[in-house]
């Protein structure tokens, strides 16, 4: 399968990423990361950056590969399959916001930093509801002053470049770039039950910023573009994770013996696996279609992306939930990777808005077109 726009061989990309992650993000390594409650697996990050994964979507003029939604989906699917602890999506979303902000030297420098992996990005978590923020951006002292609070920054404590949604004095929304190391910024890590990732909340107290930190973009439009990309990325993570945990479960059902036969021969278990398989084929088809539409800039891309996120997250959760049950006692242990998938599935259901928020927005868009 080839991306007709970019000429990228998607199967080769998938196999390449999968091969690297099999070594660098094995279940053993992911568990070690989770046990240590780390913020960043620096070795894995450097490897990803070295292989060009962080350069994926940045424009070529800024040192990127200029690839699009199809490639982003392939990589995220593999990260989901491996339940990999890599703050890659936040970095890609930061690049996406900057891609709307022109080609000034400052934008170029930030983008290059993100593309080469010398910087890690995190962005405000947009949801399908109306865009909102607890950050106030005012003018002052020949620049800007930021006050307030940014919560729910995915992998935010690993990031050194934050792109945040703030409200200006005139009530309008704006995207602003902040380095969390400067005075007046107080970041706090919120450990999530899914230890492959975390959230961060950051408090800003009279933080002065030079005026070029305010991005010259249509804030609302960027918010919607971000929502579509993030929804599809999470949907891809779900699809990869769900396929992996279903495969693991099927292997277990074929080998685990009870009552003198493999437990996979019992019909009650077979039928559940068949249902999971059909759900995966169905949701995977919607994900592929939505990704394709987004890559082509289709009008219906946002609606399909939101629908795909709601469906893929729900399918992932159902499969991961049942995987623990189908594995029996071993699936309930800390030792076994089942719980890593279950917890990632649960977090995925909430990232960038929950299922009901996505469905409500889909309904709105359908009704507008009806």
């Amino acid at each position, binding site marked *: 399968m080839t991306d007709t726009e970019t000429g990228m061989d998607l199967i080769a990309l998938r196999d390449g990423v999968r091969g690297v992650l099999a070594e660098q993000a094995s279940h053993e390594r992911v568990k070690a990361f989770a046990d240590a409650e780390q913020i960043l697996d620096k070795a894995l990050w450097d490897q990803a950056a070295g292989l060009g994964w962080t350069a994926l979507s940045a424009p070529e003029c800024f040192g990127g590969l200029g690839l699009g939604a199809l490639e982003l989906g392939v990589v995220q699917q593999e990260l989901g399959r491996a339940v990999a602890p890599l703050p890659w999506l936040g970095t890609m979303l930061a690049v996406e916001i900057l891609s709307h902000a022109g080609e000034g030297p400052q934008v170029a420098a930030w983008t290059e930093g993100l593309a080469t992996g010398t910087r890690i990005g995190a962005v405000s978590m947009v949801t399908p509801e109306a865009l909102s923020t607890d950050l106030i951006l005012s003018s002052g002292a020949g620049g800007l002053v930021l006050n307030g609070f940014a919560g729910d920054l995915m992998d935010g404590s690993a990031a050194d470049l934050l792109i945040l949604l703030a409200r200006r004095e005139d009530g309008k929304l704006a995207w602003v770039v902040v380095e969390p190391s400067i005075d007046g910024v107080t970041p706090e890590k919120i450990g999530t039950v899914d230890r492959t990732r975390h959230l961060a909340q950051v408090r800003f107290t009279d933080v002065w910023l030079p005026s070029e930190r305010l991005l010259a973009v249509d804030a609302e439009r960027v918010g919607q573009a971000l929502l579509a990309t993030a929804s599809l990325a999470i949907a891809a993570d779900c699809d990869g994770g769900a396929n992996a945990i279903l495969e693991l479960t099927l292997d277990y059902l*074929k080998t685990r013996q009870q009552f003198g036969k493999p437990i996979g021969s019992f019909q009650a278990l077979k039928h559940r696996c068949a249902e999971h*398989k*059909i759900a995966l084929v169905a949701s995977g088809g*919607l994900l592929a279609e939505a990704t394709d539409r987004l890559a082509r800039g289709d009008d219906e891309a946002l609606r399909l992306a939101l*629908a795909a996120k709601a469906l893929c997250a729900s399918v992932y959760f159902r499969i991961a939930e049942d995987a623990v049950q189908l594995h029996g006692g071993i699936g309930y242990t800390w030792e076994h990777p089942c719980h890593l998938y279950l917890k990632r599935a649960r977090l995925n259901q909430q990232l960038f808005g929950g299922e009901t928020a996505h*469905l409500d927005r889909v309904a709105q868009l359908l009704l507008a077109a009806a």
Partner: protein
Amino acid sequence: MTLSTPTVSPARVFDPLAHKDDLTAFRAEVRAWLEAVVPADWQTRMTGADEADYVAFQRWWFAEMQKVGLATPHWPRDWGGADIGIRHQTIIFEEVARAGAPGPELFVISLYHLPATLFGHGSQAQRDRYLTGVKERGEVWCQGFSEPNAGSDLASLRTRAERRGDVYVVNGQKVWSSYGAFADYCLLLARTDFEAPKKQAGITYFILDMKAPGVTVRPIRQATGQSEFCEIFLDNVEIPVADRIGEENAGWMIAQSTLSAERGLIVFELSERMARAFDADLAEAKRTDAAWLKDDQLRREFTAAYSDMVTLRLMIRAMMQEVEADPHMGSATLPTYIKIHFSNILRRYTDFRVRIGGLAAQAQQPAVMGGGHQTGNAMHDFILSYAWSISGGTVEILKTVIAERVLGLPR
């Protein structure tokens, strides 16, 4: 005015297939033909219609489709079809759904199952005789597979066929034959070898003339109140050897071709109609500011079901691409996923319609004969949805098939 009388004389001669090479013109011609020929009030006239009117209407509709070559366009050219591919078929189904045209329900076996069987396994004489019969004389076929004690376990069928010279003498009972009461012929499975080591190995495939002496048909009234299904009793019925399809005892393998038809173009057309119904329901709800739109739970249920409907259409399009690449679909798994997925969505959606219909949907109303799966009569549509989850292999049997043959779980 009786229903059997064609009520519309098209203003001009339509010929969609003459525009085969230009998809836009092809679509326009199909649309123009449908606009000219489909009676605007056919659903009203078929509401509560009796069987004679229904059959007459079906025959009229088939003849109209045949006049413009759109009854058998999917058949190979050598067999009287137009050899059209997926893009043309998609257009036809989209336009048929858009126009709310009747489906040729009475002819489903004639148009899909019979050719799927004869193309691969029939003799030249059989293809000449019977495919021509469908195409030129609108002959109706039914299927005689299931028996009272051979449903999901079809291979244990016990209808007996014994060779005596140039004929087989057949005795037994068949059940669940759709439109058997109106059929001219039947695709029949019977056991010719009771000693075969595997029960699948002793079955032979026949063409049964429904007018042959010894054939008795009795309609079964189903839960909807209608009598689409029939029982067929076979009492010393003689079938000429020339009407055997394939070799003796090779029937089970041939039957797989017949059944694969059920999961191809038929479900394609039904899913296009379902997509139309979703959009029409949404537009109607918007227009009337329906209560369910403001009920968070119901609206979200509809929206989630809408996504599932989209996934079904995407799966079917992927399947059609597979069919185009490999018409025999040897080891294809998508058709089985699709049958289960379609059954589930149909049940879920018709159930949704019943619930939003409230008490009013419980009032007895005559059904639209031949109205398909979305007639607007919510309870009727809901009950009819079982036809998909039970017939042609229950959802449960198909899940076992997926688990064992696709997922590799042990028997």
